[in-house]
């Protein structure tokens, strides 16, 4: 019943609960006294005056709100920006132009002539005579012959 006394004073009980409470109060002097005292307390609390926010309060809130950084969602990263699109177009244009210019500006070299020269160099590399008569290679130690030849059955040759 204790927890219902305050709700009864507040008039926040359901109709059935209120009737039940009133029935109890008519027979219980202690609860009736408590109801009267709680009513007195809530009435006394009404006497506490309100204060008004200071004149600068609203301005301070507005200033703090205005100082908040503008947050952009990550999705905004994908939205095209005119400046970025313009810069990217210029870069692409410049790349194409430089590529075209470098191809056309090599003077006096014929493509067939370049191919023939390259094939000749490759033949030199492939020529074994050139490699075998290459002096610096003669100074290299001769590769060691494998003495312990294994026989066909996989057993090593025994020397007595």
């Amino acid at each position: 019943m204790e927890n219902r006394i305050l709700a009864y004073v507040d008039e926040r009980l359901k109709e059935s609960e209120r009737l039940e409470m009133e029935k109890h109060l008519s027979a219980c002097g202690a609860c009736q006294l408590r109801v009267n005292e709680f009513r007195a307390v809530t009435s006394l609390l009404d006497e506490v005056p309100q204060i008004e926010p200071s004149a600068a309060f609203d301005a301070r809130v507005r200033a703090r709100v205005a100082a908040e950084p503008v947050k952009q969602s990550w999705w905004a990263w994908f939205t095209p920006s005119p400046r970025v699109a313009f810069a990217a177009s210029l870069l692409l244009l410049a790349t194409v132009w430089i590529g075209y210019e470098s191809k056309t500006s090599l003077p006096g070299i014929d493509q067939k002539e370049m191919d023939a020269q390259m094939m000749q160099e490759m033949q030199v590399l492939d020529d074994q005579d050139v490699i075998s008569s290459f002096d610096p290679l003669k100074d290299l130690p001769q590769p060691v012959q494998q003495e312990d030849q294994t026989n066909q059955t996989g057993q090593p040759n025994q020397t007595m």
Partner: protein
Amino acid sequence: MARSDVQLMLDVKAGDERSFELLLQRYRTPLVNFLYRMVRAREEAEDLAQEVFLRVYRARKDYVPSAKFTTWLFRIATNLALNSVRDNRYQRMEVSLDAPVTVDAEDGDEKPLDIAEKHPNIEQYLVEEARKKMIRHAIDKLPEKQRAAVLLHKYQELDYGDIAKILECSESALKSLLFRAYETLRVELAPLVARHGK
């Protein structure tokens, strides 16, 4: 027809800054009073109230009207107030031992001559002031959670369910909390309560 709090907040979410201004006008006084009665320092109460509005503004993009706007608003305010009271408790205990008694705005900062001019019946005025002071001190002496519950119940007239959500407890726990708080107030204010009953 006035737009509801939830509608205003949804408009703020959509980018309407004027709706935020309307919410500010609607809740500045209740919030400042609630926080003032919690922390008992006007400047601090205003700072905290500004912080509440700022947090509401920051959260606008994620706002979902799943609960009453006032429940959300006073939940932010209550958390800030409880943290502030707990942070300042020891500091205030140290100060109160040797600091001179100061009078804040609500306690009345009028000089005796001003009082005599403004209130011809000075005796009655002083009795009323002493009475208000006694009530305020009875509220101040409540443990902070009980104090928050009483302030939300009495001055904001919120439902038990809403107050329970704000204080993050069950409705039955809240009713017990409120009962204990009103019991304490009844005892603290016994001389006034007895006179009130006559």
